[in-house]
């Protein structure tokens, strides 16, 4: 064996193990994150944390009840904007669109997907907050909804396209018009994927903070209806993390654990369910 061969073989072993190290490092990052959150946040989770409103600055004992409800409300509003436009738009792209319109609409959706979330916040501010003359849950929900649209559009279009032609043709052979076919055959067939796409989109925007900074603004109390500013979980985490008060730091950790828990569980469930769905679907 020549020296060169020995060199090549050792290089081979070293580089390949390095790649394994890289993979290990990346994968362990997730567990490190979870570990820190569980360790620091778990200590502060108790019943009152979930049921109390925030305390005055400097006092201990506040909670994130209004932030959790606020986030839920924002997601609801976002869903009401994102799902119809995303899903029905996807139906258009998959079933009806001609080449030119499809190109423009897909391009616009990709553009929207690439817009940084803070810029979406500026957009929502100038369109909703300035028009309504106040901060509101609606403005925050609008920003999040706009972010959901491209995500839902692209995934749903793919799922709709993946429904086999035979199903469509069968329905049409039985005399159903195109729209009836879509509504009663195609969409239900793709429903597993569609629900997955929606849930993943919701999980993604649930953690967004930047677009809410000057739309939903924040609230010390319960926010009622659509027109009042509202507290939201990610914004509360941000504010508390940047404050000097130890008690608020504890709350930030706990709130972070709650948020991450919800996001990860949603991701895990939908992927597992989707996996099972596509396996059964054939």
């Amino acid at each position, binding site marked *: 064996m020549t020296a060169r061969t020995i060199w090549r073989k050792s290089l081979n072993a070293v580089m390949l193990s390095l790649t394994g190290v890289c993979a290990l490092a990346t994968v362990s990052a997730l567990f490190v994150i979870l570990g820190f959150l569980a360790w620091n946040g778990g200590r502060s989770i108790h019943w009152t944390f979930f049921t109390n409103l925030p305390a*005055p600055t400097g006092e201990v004992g506040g909670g994130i009840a209004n932030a959790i409800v606020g986030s839920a409300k924002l997601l609801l509003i976002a869903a009401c904007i994102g799902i119809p436009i995303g899903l029905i738009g996807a139906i258009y792209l998959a079933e009806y669109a001609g080449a030119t319109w499809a190109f423009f609409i897909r391009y616009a959706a990709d553009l929207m997907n690439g817009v940084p979330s803070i810029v979406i916040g500026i957009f929502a501010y100038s369109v909703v907050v300035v028009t309504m*003359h106040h901060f509101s849950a609606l403005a925050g929900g609008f920003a999040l909804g706009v972010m959901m649209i491209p995500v839902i559009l692209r995934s749903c279009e793919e799922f709709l396209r993946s429904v086999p032609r035979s199903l469509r043709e069968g329905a049409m052979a039985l005399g159903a018009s195109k729209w009836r076919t879509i509504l009663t055959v195609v969409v239900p067939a793709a429903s597993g994927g569609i629900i997955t796409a929606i849930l993943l989109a919701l999980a993604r925007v649930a953690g967004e903070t930047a677009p809410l900074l000057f739309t939903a603004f924040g609230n*010390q109390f319960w*926010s009622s*209806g*659509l027109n*009042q500013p509202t507290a939201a979980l990610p914004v509360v985490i941000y*504010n508390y993390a*940047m404050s000097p008060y130890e008690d608020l730091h504890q709350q930030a950790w706990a709130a972070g654990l709650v948020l991450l828990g919800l996001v990860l569980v949603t991701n895990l469930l939908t992927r597992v369910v989707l996996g099972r769905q596509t396996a059964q679907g054939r």
Partner: protein
Amino acid sequence: MKKPLLLVSLCLGIAGFVAAQGGTVQLQAAGATFPAPIYTKWFDAYKKINPKIEVNYQPVGSGGGIRQLIAKTVDFGASDGPMTDEQIGQAGFKILHFPTVLGADVPSYNIPGVNTSLKFTGKALAGIFLGTINKWNDPEITKANPGVKLPGEDIVVVHRSDGSGTTYIWTDFLSKVSPEWKAKTGGPGTSINWPTGLGGAKNDGVAGLIKQTPNSIGYIELTYAIQNKIEFGDVQNSAGNFVKATLASVSEAAAGAAKDMPDDFRVSITNAPGKTAYPISSFTWLLIPAQIQDTGKREIIKGFLNWMLKDGQGYCEGLSYAKLPPPVVAKEAKAISLIK
């Protein structure tokens, strides 16, 4: 199918949210973090007395308070830097200033090994924040602190990254005691071009940075320094004495203004005369539109202001703010009738 049921329950849920808290009125306010501890305490206490009235005060900084008031996205604002005529002009409607409490900006620092109150001259503070004095054992600092062992470390300056009334008060003082500061930065302002340092958002962010960063110095409101147990120093006043910020020294700074308060309540009390006056004191104001269309909101605001001038002042001492001087309270009580 399950879908209509889902849709119906969704709508009911939305309706439920909308109908919740029937009858409670929620006012929106935003502004200074300088008085945030006492404002949030006040609005919390006020809600306990009047359960149907909520004031959602968001401490976003004085700059934010002024801006959102001008944009009319909040019912009233709060600031420790009084609005300039230009800003009031920009608003297009008349805005009244109502002082609420007296507070102080203190030079807070975190120097490992130094657990006493340092003494700062105006010149020293200006130099530190201009970046011309950049080590802790600089003669300008050590000569005022003969007994203290100061390290030869770099000074980490911490300032506000957002538009801040606390910054206004600080730069107002520095502009009065340092012509170099005034020339370089243009005088008092809520958002200035800082020559050096790290930026933290709100009093909270600055306090947090000071606490975590060794050899740092920043300016925060007195309450934040006390609540977070951060060391803060004495400042040399116009009479040449080094004074610590206390309720007494802050009240003394306001004594002159109490007698000669202008009608619009916009006054600066930094570097005030008085042997034991604390030189970086200030009033802080609620910014209320002179004309409020909504009768309900108008009455709520006027009711709150009256409460604030009487019972509200009782909360000051517990949170390290100084009460308003009695002549100012009397003058304000009359001014409330200007809100129509």
